[in-house]
């Protein structure tokens, strides 16, 4: 609704969420007090152009009944000050609530947060898993005013996405691949997924890359045989990617290969030599390296 009505300012705002925030919200929901149905809290982040990036969050205790809602403002302020000390560039960008729908009291809370930040975003995280789906929605509010009198506050949905930093991806990857092992023996092992299994993760990476290449070649085959109509953009992209593979003559490649292998082996030899020295010094009991 209201597709043609322009928002007063900040239209085309979109929200990007870091997975840390979602996990914290889930954790807070699991830890909530008994009489509460939902958890609310503050979102921290940065605003770049029209994209609001939510980086961190903390829970604020609140009390709501059908008539009124009370939010622990002191707690909110204290936590914000503490967080400012660690990350001074993050500011309040909105607030979140768990649950599947918007409540009446949300307007009041939104009002409070609009005093803290210019365009507070309200994020609803559906922890009840309605429709067997875990949905995260973001809203921004608009006040409907008739002249000077404020009639109501309207929540308008804005696009919300989950983004990963490059490094977070490694952590999330580990959680995913550790959790998605289907075989029953590894179900016992998923809890013991060791972080230091270097060779295994390399093999897994190669496997995934091979899968990807297989998918791409399947797609190309099907386009060539006419089953699927090819898109020129994808075709060009694939051609570009393949052009990036350097074509080396056999002798060049052998030279490069041998040099790299020799470097790696020499370094391994040096480090083993050093280790032998240290072990020798320890045995001799002089705590002195035989290197003079």
């Amino acid at each position, binding site marked *: 609704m209201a597709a043609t009505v322009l928002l007063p300012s900040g239209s085309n705002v979109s929200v990007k969420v870091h997975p*840390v925030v*979602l*996990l*914290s919200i*889930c*954790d807070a929901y699991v*830890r909530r*007090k008994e009489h509460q149905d939902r958890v609310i809290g503050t979102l921290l982040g940065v605003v770049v152009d029209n994209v609001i990036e939510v*980086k*961190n969050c903390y*829970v604020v*205790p609140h009390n709501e009944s059908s008539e009124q809602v009370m939010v622990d403002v002191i707690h909110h302020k204290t*936590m914000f000050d*503490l967080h400012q*000390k*660690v*990350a001074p560039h993050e500011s309040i960008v909105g607030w979140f609530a768990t649950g599947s729908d918007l409540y009446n009291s949300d307007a009041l809370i939104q009002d409070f947060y609009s005093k803290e930040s210019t365009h507070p975003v309200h994020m609803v995280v559906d922890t009840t*898993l309605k429709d067997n*789906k875990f949905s*995260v929605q973001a809203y921004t509010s608009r006040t409907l005013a008739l002249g000077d009198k404020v009639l109501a506050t309207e929540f308008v949905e804005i696009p919300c996405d*989950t983004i990963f930093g*490059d*490094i*977070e*991806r*490694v*952590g*999330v*990857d*580990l*959680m*995913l691949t550790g*959790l*998605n092992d289907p075989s029953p023996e590894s179900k016992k092992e998923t*809890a*013991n*997924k060791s*972080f230091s299994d270097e060779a295994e993760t*390399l093999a897994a*990476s*190669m496997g*995934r*890359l091979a*899968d990807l290449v297989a998918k791409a070649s399947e797609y190309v085959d099907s386009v060539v045989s006419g089953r699927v109509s090819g898109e020129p953009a994808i075709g060009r992209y694939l051609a570009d990617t393949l052009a990036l593979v350097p074509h*080396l003559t056999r002798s060049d490649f052998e030279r490069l*290969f041998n040099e*790299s292998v020799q*470097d*790696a082996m020499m*370094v*391994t030899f*040096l*480090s083993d030599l*050093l280790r032998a020295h*240290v072990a020798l010094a*320890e045995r001799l009991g*002089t*705590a*002195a390296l035989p*290197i003079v």
Partner: protein
Amino acid sequence: MAAVLEGGAHRAHKELVKTVQLEGQVLLKIIQHCSEALPQLVTGQLLGLDVGQQLEVTDCFAFPTAVADDDVEAESAGANYQLEMMRCLREVNVDNNTVGWYQSANMGTFQTVELIETFINYHENIKKCVCIIYDPQRSARGNLGLKAIRLKESFIELSKEQKLTLKGFQEVKLSWRDIFVELPIKVRNSNLVQALVADLMPAPSATLADVDRLNLSVAPFLERNIQSLVECVDDIVQEQQKVSVYHKSVARQQQLYAAWLQKRRQENTQRLQDNLEALPEEDPTLFKPIPEPSMLDNYLVTNQIATYCDQINIAASEAIQKLFLMEGIQKAGL
């Protein structure tokens, strides 16, 4: 850093903690905090529960980097921050139990005297504490550089008795390898979070992490490692010199003492002949025993060398694997 008290069971002189279990959100929070703060190294506090021999870490928060000029001011500000944060977290039902701290490390080196001091500080109040070391450079190469470290119990006893000398170590049969104990880490997520993770992110095809991992360039990383290794070898040669100086000075002192003793004996025989009292043959004020140098620095540097060597070995073997794979692909005529 002031540590908050929460009772811990008293155990005999055995390893109290065998494994560490992290919640997914702790993992991501540590990663986010440490990688955003690069190139500065940062620390934070871990909260959780200890369950038998497993330490469960359920939450964490970051420490502000101390920028105050006055040391006393910085310490009290840090303690204040900690107390405030714990109080606020308690209001929202987060486990109010300190189980350790995390810090980011450069190139995986964490073996410093400060770490050991912090451990001992923590140990006075909490027997089961752990330190998690995060290595951002290793994660940039596609693998997660996370380690859980504890000091070995026997080492803590030794340092309390201030007997950090070579003889002291040999008495308890500790070697430099036994200072730190690395604990295996598990990641655990509540069911809700597992649903979130499975739903929000589709089944993994090759991701950016894979691209990082399959990167063929390993030389810069090896270079940096070798540089640090060379510095470490310099350090250890210095330590060695300290030890040899000590040995020499002890030997010299013995010589002097022997010469003086002889002279005393001669004097005494002379005095006996003159029917005077014999002078005592000991003179503690003249020959003070030279204190033996502490082996702690030595051992820490050795530990660092071992870490670097391990890293180099792993990186080099990875590189060789990747190169051979490349060769295979080349031969297949791509």
